[in-house]
């Protein structure tokens, strides 16, 4: 580790790794955007990167250092000896070169901010490495999250034969206009996806209401009232939370087969809340515990009974928690797959997730499957992004106190 405490060691090391990471990133981005061949050149990017790491540690002005890194990277990339090898149109090649040069110049100098050439203090060394790791982290996480969703959306807009020819070519033919959305149109027209969406929606909403109706009184009792067995009860909530669904699904399948509830939406509405009630109980009791009991005691002193206290004082105070629990429950019900898959066989009663599972067959082209996936994802994403604050608060506040 001591060796790292010199600017001329840390600089080139970080530079080499960083340029390789950036070259890979730019190559992947442009491959996905254009479908042409871009790839990082390992040896060259390590050498050029090391050099730019040294340059970034020089004592020049910021702008001069950026230019001293960006210019050679740009030139080398264009003549084909750079950190990135390309076989594409002149336009996208020059865009790639400019992009890579600018990003490496700016970020290299930013990472090596205040790192001198000679001996470093422990602070200077560690901060440079932390800046490098942070940059890498942002790129890494953004890439792993975005790529699957990008592929999902783009595949749904392209034809399977086009993708078989070049699996990387996601460029869209914008002249087609609305015809791009052909697979969505066909899903709604020929595969009943409108009905599935509606079924999913009302099943989820009903699940939310039933769950709240059961879990609010339960959570309040566990959180506030003193009774024998309270501790055992709050533990068994957690325990039930941990029973795997597949274990329950088997007897439920048998019971529903025998009673004829299989293949009915009623059966689904009956069973979904039970999977969500433990979660809701757990989240809500955590929240109720956090409310100041004095307010409720004041209400009791003023002559309200317990139920009135719950209705008039606790619930209004717990509104944000109720919102996040509802959201979470809605999300669970909307995304639920296992029970819908096991209990529903009749295509007229499918929920959305069951409908998407139906599309997974070799006779149905891929773009339909991906369009189905997009249709299932978009509503829950919109809801989530719109109410993200509630969601994250509720998830963290209720489930595990921090």
């Amino acid at each position, binding site marked *: 580790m001591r060796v790292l405490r010199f600017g001329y060691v840390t600089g080139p090391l970080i530079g080499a790794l960083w340029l390789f990471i950036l070259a890979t990133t730019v*190559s*992947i981005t442009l*491959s*996905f955007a254009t479908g042409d*061949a871009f790839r*990082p050149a390992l040896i060259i990017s390590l050498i050029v990167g090391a050099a730019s790491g040294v340059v970034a540690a020089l004592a020049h002005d910021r702008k001069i250092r950026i230019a001293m890194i960006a210019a050679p990277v740009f030139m080398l990339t264009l003549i084909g000896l750079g950190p990135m090898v390309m076989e594409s149109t002149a336009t996208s090649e020059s865009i790639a070169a400019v992009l890579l040069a600018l990003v490496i110049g700016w970020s290299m100098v930013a990472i090596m901010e205040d790192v001198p050439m000679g001996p470093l203090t*422990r602070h200077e060394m*560690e901060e440079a490495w*932390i800046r490098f790791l942070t940059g890498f*982290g*942002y790129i890494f*996480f953004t890439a792993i*999250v975005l790529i*699957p969703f990008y*592929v999902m959306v783009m*595949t749904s807009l392209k034809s399977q034969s086009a993708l078989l020819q070049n*699996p990387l070519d*996601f460029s869209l033919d914008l002249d087609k206009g609305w015809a791009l959305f052909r697979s969505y149109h066909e899903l709604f027209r020929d595969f009943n996806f409108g009905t599935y969406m509606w079924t999913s929606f009302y099943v989820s909403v009903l699940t939310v209401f039933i769950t709240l109706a*059961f*879990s609010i*009184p*339960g959570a*309040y*009792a566990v959180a506030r*009232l*003193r009774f*024998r067995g*309270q501790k055992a*009860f709050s533990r068994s909530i957690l325990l*039930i939370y*941990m*029973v*795997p669904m597949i*274990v*329950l699904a*088997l*007897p*439920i399948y*048998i*019971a529903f087969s*025998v009673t004829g509830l299989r293949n009915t939406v009623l059966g689904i509405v009956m*069973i979904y*809340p039970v999977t969500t009630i433990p979660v809701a109980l757990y989240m809500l009791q955590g929240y109720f515990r956090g409310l100041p009991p004095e307010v409720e005691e004041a209400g009791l002193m003023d002559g309200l009974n317990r139920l009135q206290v719950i209705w008039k004082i606790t619930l209004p105070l717990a509104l944000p928690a109720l919102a996040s629990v509802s959201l979470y429950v809605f*999300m669970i019900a909307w*995304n639920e*797959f*296992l029970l819908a898959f096991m209990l529903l066989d009749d295509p007229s009663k499918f929920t959305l997730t069951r409908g*998407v*599972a139906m599309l997974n067959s070799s006779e149905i082209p891929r773009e339909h*499957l991906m369009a*189905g*996936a997009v249709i*299932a994802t978009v509503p*829950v*994403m919109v809801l989530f992004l719109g109410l*993200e604050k509630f969601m*994250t608060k509720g*998830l963290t506040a209720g489930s*595990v106190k*921090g």
Partner: protein
Amino acid sequence: MRVAIPPNGRGPLERREARLAWSLLLPTITIVSLVVVLPLLAIFWISFKPIGLADLRPPAPVLRESLRGSGDEMRIEYRLRNSSQDTEITEVTIRDVWPESLIVTGDLPAGCTLDGRAFACDLGTLEPGYNERLRVPVMLADGAEEDAAEEAAEGSTPIVRGEAESILTNAEFTVENFARVFDGDAFWTVMWVTIFYTVFGTVGALLFGLFAAMLLNKSFRGQGILRGLYLFPYVAPVIAVAFTWVNLFDPFSGSANALLLQMGVTSEAINFFGQRPLALIMVTVFEIWRYFPLSFLFILARMQSIDTDMYEAADMDGASPFQKFWYLSLPMLLGILSVLFLLRFIWTFNKFDDIFLLTGGNAGTRTLTVNVYEQAFAISNIGAGAAVAVVIFGCLLAFSFFFFRFISREEGL
């Protein structure tokens, strides 16, 4: 002077509160025990039963009525069969109403009577695999048309009843299911896959979550956007993301393979979800990808609640960034990390959908939960599936024992 002593026993107020508590809890307890406790008991019961998927429908007599022939040869024919090949049905009865346009000309089958238009049979016991025709010779009444008579005869549905033992409720037990589950190497393969998946899935998700939380534990423009973005894998429906991954890593038309080929990492397409041991690794990676957001969210919440004074003091003492992380942040996060580890461990152990959708349990990715499905539905042996479920439940009880010992200290539950 009387000495004031604290009241012993429970006062009326306390009792009233307890009564209220129980009445508030009652609906929840009822529904949860109906749908959770009862099925759990059922699983134990079924796991000792020799029962297959086909036995779910209890054996029943099946009857079809038709009017055959014409003129003198005309007859009403009941085709009666036992739906089961190995269970007898007792006390079988048939009740039917005949139209007036038909007149009986010959003998009724044994055990059958005709009272006016009401036809009734008491057939007693049907052997397993019984399949016979009961014929009653008839003729048309005056002025009746043949087609109308046929329609009338077949229009009134005969009612058939019978008693049969259902395998679900009789007293026949077997340990063969468990013998099959624990049979030889197969069980240990499944167990090993489950352990690999659970341990690496949990630890991976925690580490990535910790990394992501450290990235976002500072305020900058776009922090909110990135935080929302990093939660995507967790929020999206599993079915959507699982199929996307299958698509992305497809050996023929997958973009991942195309990318790797183009970059020269591999010279031929890799079948990511189709070969051992890569499939198991991929499934674990998917688990990490899908659940790092959850750990990230909890760890970030905990990080933001750590007092900044401590870091200021450390700065004054000249602690370096890594030292601050190692000696200050990590000990503060240890509690949430261990709780998350235990919770995620149990949930990953329980995970079914992900593997089922990605590989269907093939290519060496069959975990215990997938095995339940595999035994019960793919091999149609519900008993064996239930036996695997019992094994899972046993493991779960063991985990929760640890969990409660630990979490009571951490969480004060």
